[in-house]
């Protein structure tokens, strides 16, 4: 009889091995999926995971890698703080949208004044603030009225999407846009644009912010009392209370930090790669970042690596879509599968499999 036996302490080896095994398992299962769709599985897997880095057109894709990984890492770092403490902010997509709207609105308000030293920093602040305030709604409702933050943060995504549509069609619509939806393109407005810092690299301020977030996140979790409190509250809420951790404040801190980081990500995206506020501005980074956070084991360095891997599936997915006709939705299913395998294999970190030769008495 096979049974699971709880390990006295989580296995470190398995904790590192499970993400890798999950990626391998996803490649196998994804390959079957692609074969089922009538594609050559090996070719698709190679197009997604190999060609963007080392293939013939890699020079083009490599830049895209940073563009996609930046927001994913930035958002996931924020989410990981909350997930560690048992605070479930799953509405990062909404905070991302609100950050983009607030930041872009500030930039557009100054149009056509040219003063980059003033306008761009103000936009960054407004973006972070927008995401922060949007995340404070579930935060305050949770601490003040005991309302479930999972549901509120998620429902607010749909509200934010409506606000985005309203902004794109109404207040922020470009007066020169001939009636088309969408704001002015911020990339054509030098004081507000989030340009590439090194041409062709994909490096922009959002990616810089993501790297800073990784370093700060690592220092916070391993060296700072707040990081200790977060880990303590996640491991044992009761012990945390005895240690004097204020649970309400911790909830607000986690939600606020993740909201602000998602807001930053939104602002850097709207001022850079996306360029304008439009109805289809958000593409689900806020949700994919949840997978990134778990795949990175809620650890800043892990999230950095996971962010690049997820970015790779986006870019490789687009390439596979263009050259092999693999549907875009397949990549989304592929990403969801990855999370499943990860969660399933995680059992090995905390439990060990025992096979009893004979039934126990």
């Amino acid at each position, binding site marked *: 009889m096979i049974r*699971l*036996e*709880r390990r006295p302490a989580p296995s470190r080896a398995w904790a590192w091995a499970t993400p890798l095994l999950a990626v391998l398992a996803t490649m196998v299962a994804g390959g079957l999926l692609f074969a089922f769709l009538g594609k050559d599985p090996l070719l698709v897997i190679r197009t997604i995971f190999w060609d963007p880095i080392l293939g013939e057109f890699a020079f083009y894709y490599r830049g895209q890698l940073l563009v996609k990984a930046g927001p994913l890492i930035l958002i996931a770092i924020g989410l990981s703080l909350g997930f560690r403490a048992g605070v*479930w902010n*799953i509405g990062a997509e909404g905070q991302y949208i609100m950050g983009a709207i607030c930041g872009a609105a500030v930039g557009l308000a100054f149009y056509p004044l040219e003063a980059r030293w003033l306008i761009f920093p103000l936009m960054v602040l407004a973006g972070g603030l927008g995401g922060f305030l949007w995340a404070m709604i579930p935060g305050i*409702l949770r601490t003040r*009225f*005991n*309302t*479930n933050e*999972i*549901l*509120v943060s*998620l*429902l*607010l*995504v*749909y*509200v934010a999407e*409506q*606000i985005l*549509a*309203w902004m794109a*069609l*109404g207040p922020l619509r470009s007066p020169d846009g001939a009636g088309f939806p969408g704001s002015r393109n911020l990339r054509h407005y030098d004081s507000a644009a989030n340009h590439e810092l090194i041409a062709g690299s994909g490096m922009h301020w959002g990616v810089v912010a993501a790297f800073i977030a990784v370093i700060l996140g690592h220092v916070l979790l391993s060296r700072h009392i707040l990081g200790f409190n977060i880990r303590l509250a996640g491991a044992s809420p009761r012990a945390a209370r005895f240690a004097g951790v204020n649970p309400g404040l911790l909830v607000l801190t986690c939600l606020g930090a993740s909201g602000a980081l998602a807001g930053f990500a939104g602002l850097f995206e709207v001022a850079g790669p996306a360029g304008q506020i439009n109805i289809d501005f958000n593409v689900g980074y806020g*949700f994919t970042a*949840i*997978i990134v956070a*778990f795949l990175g084991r809620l650890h800043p360095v892990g999230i950095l690596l996971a962010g690049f891997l997820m970015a790779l599936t986006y870019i490789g997915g687009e390439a596979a879509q263009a050259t092999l006709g693999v*549907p875009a*939705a*397949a*990549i*989304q*299913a*592929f*990403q*969801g*599968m990855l*999370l*499943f395998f990860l*969660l*399933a294999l*995680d*059992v090995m970190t*905390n*439990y060990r499999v025992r096979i009893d030769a004979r039934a126990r008495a």
Partner: protein
Amino acid sequence: MDLGSINPVLLISALLLASTPILLAAMGELVVEKSGVLNLGVEGMMIVGAVSGFMAAVESGSPALGFLAAAAAAAVLALLFGVLTQVLLSNQVATGLGLTLFGLGISSLMGQGYVGIRPPASPRLDLPVLSELPVVGPVLFSQHALVYLSLAAVAGVWWYLRSTRSGLILRAVGESHEAAHALGYSVLGTRLAAIAFGGALAGLGGACLSLVIVPQWTEGMTAGRGWIALAIVVFGSWRAWRVLLGAYLFGGVSVLQLNLQAAGIAIPVELLSMSPYLITILVLVIISSDKRRAQANAPNSLGRTFHASG
């Protein structure tokens, strides 16, 4: 603006139908949560139900087969969640989220060739004699079969949880899985059955959307209804009849805002479209602010992982 164009009889009739997907999904989730499992994948199961039901109905020409396929496909997806959380002991919140993300992806993949097709019509069920009553007849007794089914589900779940032995065991498992296990009841079996049932109802709800209400297949067409169903279970404080009330409240708001949009009222369309979500949040706040009342009927083991050690 012409508010006179809003016909109250049609409004109530539309409300009953519009609430049905959420009511079905919420009833399923109620049973799941009563067994102590928090499945956040309702949205994913609904959308997979919507697409599977649509495909089966289009291919077979029979809406009934479509509904069956929807329930079966969503139940299979739910069992995936069940195996992960119950056998492999994964975190329920994370796995539920994963189920939703996976469901949204796989559904748009499955539905690729089905965009823009009309499904076979599923006729209203006119109850003889009753449907000919003036005013009340068309409102209450000339609805789609699923509307009656959803009401039967409410009554059935209420009766099952309250008056049957198996319902009592399910509640015991949800209150204290250690105690239920010690008494010799199968925690795993009970929970897997509840999860599959919850999936089937969510799938039916999804198919109700794609085959009856819209009726068409579009990507992401559930538009957060699965999450609202989850909120309504909390709103109903885990009681079947209050969940019914919550679902109809939500249905009422969404039908009313659509009518106001059509009537051309001077409120931005986007504000009207977000109103169902805002009102859901509002009622959630009102219900949960009274901590003792909100938690009184909540299953004690909700969301906790069960591992029979030793």
